[in-house]
């Protein structure tokens, strides 16, 4: 298990290095000079050159890459070209919206999907199964921003339980912050929960058809006991895979929901940065998202091994 974790860690580091190189290269080949863009079309060449020097754009590419990476390791993401503020500060403000939102949505997803999937699988072909499957079919088909608008219509406009958007900031206290994230998190979670329940159900049904379930029944376990004690853990591998993918999606793909609810999250930041050709912000946010996704994948790998002893030896 230790060796397995170590190899996964090494692969994590390699992924990070490769990702940083790719991101740096891609941003480099973007057309347009940030310095010229910042100063506008009428800028004097020597002003542009001075700004380029100030921003470090005149260094060689390898030197810039190294400066960028070593800065990031120390928490220094550089200065935003457009806002002239430290990128790390901008990210910090936003990540405390995006990360809690993604986690919140993920918890909701799991809380909805596990019971629904298990319930449907244990009543295969019955009314309960058909009901759950019908509901998840809808959940998969309907986009999350539509859910978001319906939720706003019902809970913000008619019932007035929540505000329709915006984020008060965590300095106003925990509850106002959480309250502002409830509707966006539900809107994000519903389609994901629908997908995950279907995965949970089919994975469980696969497992319930396995020989070892028959063995468990022959020992005297009831159907229910066989499902909980033997099928569930075996069914977790595909479910964990999907959860990992969903977290990445919730983190980076919250952009539409952030727009609907006017949340100052990473999605909106990157969108604005791309429009303003603020390459350093784009680079940094993308790198941060990649980092989080790779860490999540690492966590999923470790969870695989915790669930399935066969993976601890195989690579």
């Amino acid at each position: 298990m230790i060796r397995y974790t170590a190899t996964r860690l090494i692969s994590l580091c390699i992924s990070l290095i490769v990702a940083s190189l790719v991101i740096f290269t891609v941003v480099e080949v973007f057309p347009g000079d940030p310095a010229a863009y910042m100063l506008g079309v009428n800028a004097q060449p020597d002003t542009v050159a001075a700004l380029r020097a100030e921003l470090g754009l005149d260094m060689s590419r390898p030197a810039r890459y190294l400066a960028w990476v070593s800065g990031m390791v120390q928490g220094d993401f550089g200065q935003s070209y457009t806002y002239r503020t430290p990128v790390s500060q901008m990210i910090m403000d936003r990540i405390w919206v995006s990360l809690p939102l993604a986690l919140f949505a993920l918890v909701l997803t799991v809380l909805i999907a596990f019971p629904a999937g298990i319930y449907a699988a244990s009543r295969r072909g019955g009314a309960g199964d058909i009901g759950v499957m019908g509901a998840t079919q809808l959940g998969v088909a309907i986009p999350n921003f539509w859910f978001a608008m319906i939720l706003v219509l019902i809970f913000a406009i008619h019932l007035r339980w929540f505000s329709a958007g915006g984020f008060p900031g965590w300095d106003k206290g925990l509850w106002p912050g959480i309250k502002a994230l409830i509707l966006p998190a539900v809107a994000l979670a519903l389609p994901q929960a629908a997908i995950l329940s279907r995965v949970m159900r089919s994975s469980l049904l696969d497992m319930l058809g396995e020989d070892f379930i028959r063995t468990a029944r022959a020992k005297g376990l009831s159907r229910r006991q066989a499902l909980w004690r033997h099928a569930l853990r075996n069914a977790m591998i595909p479910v964990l895979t999907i959860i990992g993918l969903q977290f990445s999606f919730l983190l980076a793909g919250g952009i539409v929901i952030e727009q609907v609810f006017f949340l100052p999250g990473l999605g909106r930041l990157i969108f604005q940065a791309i429009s303003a050709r603020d390459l350093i912000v784009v680079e940094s946010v993308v790198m941060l998202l990649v980092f989080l996704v790779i860490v999540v994948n690492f966590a999923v790998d470790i969870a695989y091994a915790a669930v399935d002893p066969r993976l601890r030896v195989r690579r």
Partner: protein
Amino acid sequence: MTLLAVQGLNVSIRAVQILHEVTLEVAAGEVVAITGESGSGKSMTALAVMGLLPDRSMATGRVVLDGADLLALSEAQMCSIRGRDIGMVFQEPMTALNPVQTIGAQVAETIRIHEGIGKAQAWTRARDMLARVGLPEARFPLTRYPHELSGGQRQRVVIAMAIALRPKLLIADEPTTALDVTTQAHILDLLRDLASEFGMGLLMITHDLAVVAQMADRIVVMQKGRVAETGPTAQLFAAMKHPYTRALFAASAHRVNLPPAPAPVPLLQVRGVTRTYRQPRRSLFGPRAVVDAVADVSFTLHKGERLGLVGESGCGKSTLTRAILGLEDVQAGEITLNGAPVWSANRSNLAVRRQMQVVFQDPYGSFNPRHRVSRLITEPFHLLPHPPQGEVRDAAIARALTDVGLSPDDAHKYIHEFSGGQRQRIAIARALINDPDLIVFDEAVSALDVSVRAQVLDLLADLCRKRPLSYLFISHDLHVVHSVTDRVMVMQAGRIVEQGVTEEVFGNPQHAYTKTLLAAAPRLPEIGGISHVT
């Protein structure tokens, strides 16, 4: 005293009747074997006794265990009987255990679920039971996972789970079918010993008459969901009143008559072939261990010769086969067909490969279900530079199908319309269609029922008479290899330990391993009129 009495058991699944008036009895300490071909209702009878029939099935009649009619019990009551009064062992030990739980936990679960005792106590008893079935804790800690054990060891764990509470009745459904002959012998010994030691009734289901003859006190022969004949083993084998019993026995003991092999002209030459695999690293930067799957193997297969290759699972048979077929390169040595290497310049030599065809074990998995038979059997034509077209192609298809005892009209059907035996005939037709120099039969009859197997073996002998057929016949079934080969090779741990004329190797084995294999193989009883040798 009667322990289990099945009386007039009828089972139907979705209005299709599977079992008809099945009646049988098992006494305490008695070994009763149910035998018959696939689809005869053997396993359904066992599942009906366990109350584990598939969904939407109906059972009527009586299944009386120790005075109580099991069919009348509720599901909750059956749960308390399963595992405590009736234990069950299944065919496939590789999948019968939960892969994510330790063997100790799985054996202890049987005890805990019925007796509600603490974990420590249950584990102590699980430890004793695993030791009893031959897995002492010193060598097989209870914290092992199933994937760390071999098939035979896993089957012992399944047995320990089934007998943990010393049930009155143990049902074993084909318990050794998936195992090698030497492992099979050990497991059968264990089951018989446990039955007499615990005074258990043992209801054993097997298609293998030799195993039946060796194990059972009484036999129940089933055919198409009905009991055809039943009686004490010796008596039943002596009399064999029912024609189906006689047919089954004749098919099991079936020998074919091969025409004599022509004068030896080398066809396939294997010289000093070694194939090694690198294992995963044991430590992060440690060296990778190297395993010789095939080590320094040399032999020659002559034109028109039928050569057998026997050995247990993991001995390197499949690796050698892959190398011969040119699917993989080898580390050392050379394989040539008609003098041309099967592997040259780092790639498979297609000109040589098209002279070889192969027939695999699984008649269900080795065909694309979306293609018609005509397309399936003409697949080898893709290897030819100018594949036959139009009428020539149709004639070739018709001839190949006729040769294997099918009708040319079958060319337009899909594979699901055929039975297992017919599918294997189609596989042979596919192998024959471009007149290859060599056919490799890789466990080609192992999945077939005895009567179908006998027909396919007859077909092989028949083809040998019609054309100069050279083949390499790979099987774990010694009886079959004995019947259809001129010479045989015995493989153990990647090496060929003995090779020679089949009759001599089987009649007078030289190598200790060959002797072990032959001794472990169950034998059919000697009965006048039907000749058989294993």
